[in-house]
């Protein structure tokens, strides 16, 4: 590198230094404005609080949801828990013979009708080949 090149480099470096000195310092107001851009942490993802008390039915649903959630099998178990809970409820009704706390689920029985099969011989007739 010649003396001429060195002088040119030095002068250019001097210009860069002048430009850096000439740049304004960020003001306090500007820094405060930058701080003001910071959102409150987790504001967008805040989780709503659970109700203080919940019924046993909600408890069953939550327990099922928790089971699937902790196993991480399904991304969203909330819909599935409803189906499973309904299934459990159906089995329970079957075991109790359609009687829930003394209330019959049979609509005819509840209205005082006896259930009678008017075609009691028809099944056997079909088994015999009809006619």
């Amino acid at each position: 590198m010649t003396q001429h090149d060195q002088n040119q480099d030095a002068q250019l470096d001097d210009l860069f230094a002048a430009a850096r000195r000439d740049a304004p310092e960020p003001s306090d107001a500007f820094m405060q404005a930058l701080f003001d851009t910071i959102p409150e942490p987790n504001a967008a993802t805040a989780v709503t609080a659970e109700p203080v008390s919940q019924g046993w039915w909600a408890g069953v649903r939550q327990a099922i949801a928790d089971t699937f959630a902790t196993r991480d099998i399904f991304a969203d178990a909330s819909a599935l828990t409803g189906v499973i809970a309904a299934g459990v409820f159906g089995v329970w009704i079957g075991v109790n013979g359609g009687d829930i706390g003394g209330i019959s689920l049979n609509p005819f029985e509840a209205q005082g009708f006896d259930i009678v099969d008017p075609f009691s011989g028809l099944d056997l007739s079909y088994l015999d080949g009809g006619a």
Partner: protein
Amino acid sequence: MVKDTDISLGDLADNALLVLFANGSKPAAMELTRRLGPKLFRHAYYRLQNKSDAEDIAQEAFLRLWKIAPEWKQDQAQVSTWLYRVIDNLCIDRLRARRPSSSLDDLTNDPVDPSPSADQSMLDQSRARALHTALAALPERQAQAVRLRHLDKLTNPEIAQIMGLTVEAVESLTARGKRALQTQLHGQKTALGYENDTA
């Protein structure tokens, strides 16, 4: 989990501060702002030569940072690198939106300083203007590399990350940029207060 009170936030890397912020620490975001805000403001100013515009751009860049913080991947990029890129893109948009004739008129005209260093200040101002005008005439990538290297004082590897280039390509860009600047400014040496060497 690391808590604000366990260690000094000033000792943490930028990326760690951003992750802390994403996990609920506002002081971590404030530390990151204190650390990078002034640098990014100056970077925008070197490009735009307008204090108000530089402030707007820096604010916008930080707003975008807070927005993407929850999805930030620590191994993906440096926070500062990402911010420099955002600032550069925002500056380009801002310059495009300006009227062509206003590029030199937007230079800030601060009140004249009556202190003994006023002469030096005025000389700095005229030299800075000449440099920025010459930089604006360079090809975009050359000018960007020169600004990042010689005004922002970043290292070549940092510039390579920001510009998406190899370190060698950055060295080549800055070398060519400096030569082009010297050619452009050669005729202004006397006006800028330099002896006109003829060697």
